[in-house]
């Protein structure tokens, strides 16, 4: 297999495994970590395409994604802590009364 294809397959696999984790796992924190894994998969595909086309645009986008991921975690972690304090569990099923 070609190197580009191998890296893109890895990116696809990481994204799909992250989505599987978000759906399948019970703990809110593990779901957050799986979302990070999805972001990492997208980053890998961006870097691969940037290397292939030789433009810096992909690398710039990867940097912006780093910033967005950091901001997302900085918001998500306090929210998870608040929810845990409220219901005393991280179980995603316990929050089913949140549905509109």
């Amino acid at each position, binding site marked *: 297999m*070609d*190197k*580009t*294809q*191998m*890296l*893109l*397959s*890895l990116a*696809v*696999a*990481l*994204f*799909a*495994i992250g*989505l*599987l984790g978000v*759906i*399948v*796992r*019970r*703990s809110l*924190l593990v779901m*957050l*970590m*799986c979302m*990070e*894994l999805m972001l*990492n998969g997208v*980053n*890998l595909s961006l870097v*691969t395409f940037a*290397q*292939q086309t*030789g433009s*810096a*645009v992909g*690398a*710039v986008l990867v*940097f*912006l994604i*780093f*910033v967005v*991921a*950091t*901001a997302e*975690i*900085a*918001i998500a*972690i*306090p*929210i998870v*802590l*608040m929810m845990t*304090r*409220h219901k005393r*569990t*991280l*179980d995603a*099923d316990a929050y089913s009364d949140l549905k509109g």
Partner: protein
Amino acid sequence: MIESFLANLDTLLLYVFAASALIGALLMIVLREPMRVATALISTMVFLGGIYGLLGVHYIAAFQVLIYVGAVMVFMVYVIMLLDPRDPAVTRKFSRLLVPGVVVFAVLLAVLVASMWRAAAFLDGGSVAAGGSSSFGLQQFATAFLSEYWLQFELTSVLLVAAVVAALAVIRVSRRERG
């Protein structure tokens, strides 16, 4: 023989790092305790950083380790230490959506792989330059960042300020709830 081995060392390392990253991602689904999941995610991110280094984008590799492993995952580990280990979310691994989740995983993987094989003709156009011979370095990247994409760069600072304000607001709401 040793020379040919050394010549192919980059490719070999690339495949080893890719396989290790994949194993770490799979372990994240299988392992039960949050701390082990976090460790698996950290190892996946470090191996991805190694892949970026092998691809020649060393600054992205450095930031991958600094920001993801250094900042994000330390935050995660910190929160895991605050959690109750007897929580049912920790003792029971999977939710009720196990079967639909696996079905969605299979469908998504099939669609993405099929579209990738279709695009194989496009992908054959250029190969990834592995092993330092990168087509753009830090200098081109920095110039492009601060001359072409300066607006996005400034907007990220606005985003970070908004994130800080939002985090403070969340903390204030939780304090008010506690009384």
